[in-house]
């Protein structure tokens, strides 16, 4: 079973953090392992999923998109329809419940575009926890409305002015907060990254996506899909979709990274395609670094994929060949964003648009008898102004 006791997925993962945090990580691991076997914890989680988050999310057959691609059927797993409009809430509700169980009265989080920050602020409001969100000051300007949403939900948003003033730096600052506060604070990490046990915890709470998909595929198609497609930044929606299918070898998995301005330009977020093995934010994985080992700035039109690292389990899937990783450029993502809006009446998040872009290409090469499931990880309302600037210059 991966990860092993110390959180290693093959050579990846682990706990590359200062000693100060180790007891808190151990305590969290023990608490989590107990909670996910505890009937009353699972019942609470299930109740929130069905009555608050709005699960199960539908599996939707995108008929017009399929017709146009003229190949395999394309299904969309509609994470965009759940509460707060993205898959992030699956994880924050689970982790906030862990915080409450562990007697913590405060939660902290990092956020890039603000989706995870909003989902954390939401869970904190629901469970009456104090909430501090760290956000790069550049992202705060880009995502003003999400900053206001978090404040409405009762969270404090702390601007981060170091480094590139984006998600990478916000994550570092959240970890620094936690080094000083772990005794009474739980860190709700938003992606399948960070020191063990975070990649495992986030995967577990997000795997509801894959489990539902499996069940829904059996219902509508009577079999498992030929291929799963999901976008990968840190990789939480994708690992949530992929991991329940890990042992179903007949199901292909494709993760789509941010190709930005093209891999050759050097301005992208494709850590798996172009990164080297290193350590960032407490875990060993593929990281975008220069020859000297310094972390590089990334670029993507979608803030959620604009991150120089990736979850260790994805690095493991890549090296073992269990999943394939490709990329879609800003342009390709925008074109998929427009296409899904026009053909299906669904505005996808720019992150999810990367997955849609690749699925359209892939479907055209597959047989009509085959079918693909795309994880539509979030809705695109948050991206309307970015898209407007890009599409109507």
């Amino acid at each position: 079973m991966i990860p092993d006791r110390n959180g290693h997925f093959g050579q990846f993962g682990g706990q590359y953090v200062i000693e100060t945090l180790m007891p808190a990580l151990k305590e969290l691991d023990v608490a989590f392992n107990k909670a996910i076997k505890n009937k009353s914890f699972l019942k609470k989680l299930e109740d929130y999923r069905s009555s608050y988050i709005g699960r199960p999310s539908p599996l939707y057959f995108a008929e017009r998109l399929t017709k146009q691609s003229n190949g395999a059927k394309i299904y969309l797993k509609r994470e965009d329809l759940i509460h707060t409009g993205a898959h992030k809430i699956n994880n924050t509700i689970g982790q906030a419940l862990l915080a409450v169980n562990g007697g913590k009265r405060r939660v902290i989080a990092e956020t890039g575009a603000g989706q995870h920050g909003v989902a954390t602020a939401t869970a904190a409001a629901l469970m009456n926890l104090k909430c501090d969100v760290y956000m790069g000051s550049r992202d705060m300007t880009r995502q003003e409305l999400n900053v206001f949403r978090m404040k409405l939900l009762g969270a404090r948003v702390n601007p981060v002015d170091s480094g590139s003033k984006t998600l990478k730096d916000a994550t570092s600052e959240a970890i620094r907060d936690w080094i000083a506060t772990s005794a009474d604070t739980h860190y709700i990490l938003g992606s399948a990254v960070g020191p063990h046990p975070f990649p495992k915890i986030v995967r577990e709470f997000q795997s509801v996506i894959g489990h539902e998909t499996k069940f829904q595929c059996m219902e509508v198609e009577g079999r498992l899909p030929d291929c799963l497609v999901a976008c990968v930044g840190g990789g939480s929606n994708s690992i949530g979709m992929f991991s329940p299918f890990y042992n179903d070898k007949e199901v292909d998995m494709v993760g789509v990274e941010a190709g930005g301005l093209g891999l050759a330009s050097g301005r992208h977020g494709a850590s798996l395609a172009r990164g080297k093995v290193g350590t960032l934010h407490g875990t060993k994985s593929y990281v975008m670094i220069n020859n000297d080992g310094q972390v590089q700035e990334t670029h993507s039109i979608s803030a959620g994929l604009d991150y120089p690292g990736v979850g260790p389990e994805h690095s493991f899937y890549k090296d073992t060949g269990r999943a394939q990783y490709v990329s879609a450029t800003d342009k390709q993502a925008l074109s998929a964003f427009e296409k899904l809006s026009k053909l299906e009446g669904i505005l996808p998040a720019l992150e999810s648009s990367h997955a849609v872009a690749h699925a359209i290409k892939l479907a055209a090469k597959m047989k009509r008898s085959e079918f693909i499931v795309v994880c539509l990880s979030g809705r695109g309302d948050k991206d309307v102004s970015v898209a407007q600037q890009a599409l109507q210059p």
Partner: protein
Amino acid sequence: MNRIRTTFNKLQEKKRKALVIFLTVGDPSITGSANLVKAACEAGADIIELGVPFSDPLADGPIIQHSFTRAIAKGATLNKSMEMVEHLRTSLDTPLIYMISSMLVLNMGVQVFMRRSASVGVDGVIIPDMPLEEASEFVPYAKSTGMSSILLATPTSTSTRLRSIVSTSSGFVYYVNVSGVTGGILAKPAEVSRSVAKIKRITKLPVLAGFGIKDPKQARVLSKVCDGVIIGSKAIEVANAASNNKNGIKALDKFIRSVRKEMDRN
């Protein structure tokens, strides 16, 4: 004999406590930082901790973060750090310890890093983001090249962990005064005293206290309860506040002499 051990033996003979000064490689420039190292040793530092700049140091507060950013902008790299140490060793016998993030070590390759560090004259290594759980990845290689591995003990470390930390460490044990990042608030001396005493009961290694020490008086009070103190953020702040490297050297010299004087009053 290893320079670190020689230094502690000498200090013990003189009944003095160790003063460790942390400086960033490449801030304000490679030459400038080499000058600061020499000045710090002349002013009374017993050991120098060389911070190799990294873009994303998780355990550091704003002063060291900014220092690292400046150094990287000036072109500091791990290779240049090696060259700097090699050059310093032509005129300096003070123990030099690398404080370095795991990313930079892994990027060079653990074995290559240890071999090169030892051959240029580095005496020990602190990799703050490689705790016990990951220490087996570097400790054996440090040992085989004769370098000390200095692990961090913290206020949150359990007794079981402390036992493993001291048995894995060599050279000395670095006690982190507070649960927090570098350059923050200082813990109460009584608390530090209790924790250091607990560590000293299980090891013969010297135990040094670091994080948050900002003035000579704090250094004196804390050095009473342990074998020495480590000053980082404040030293960098002092050197960086000056208008140029020459004045930075003067300011650092003055600061270290005042700390040394206070500590030696004990």
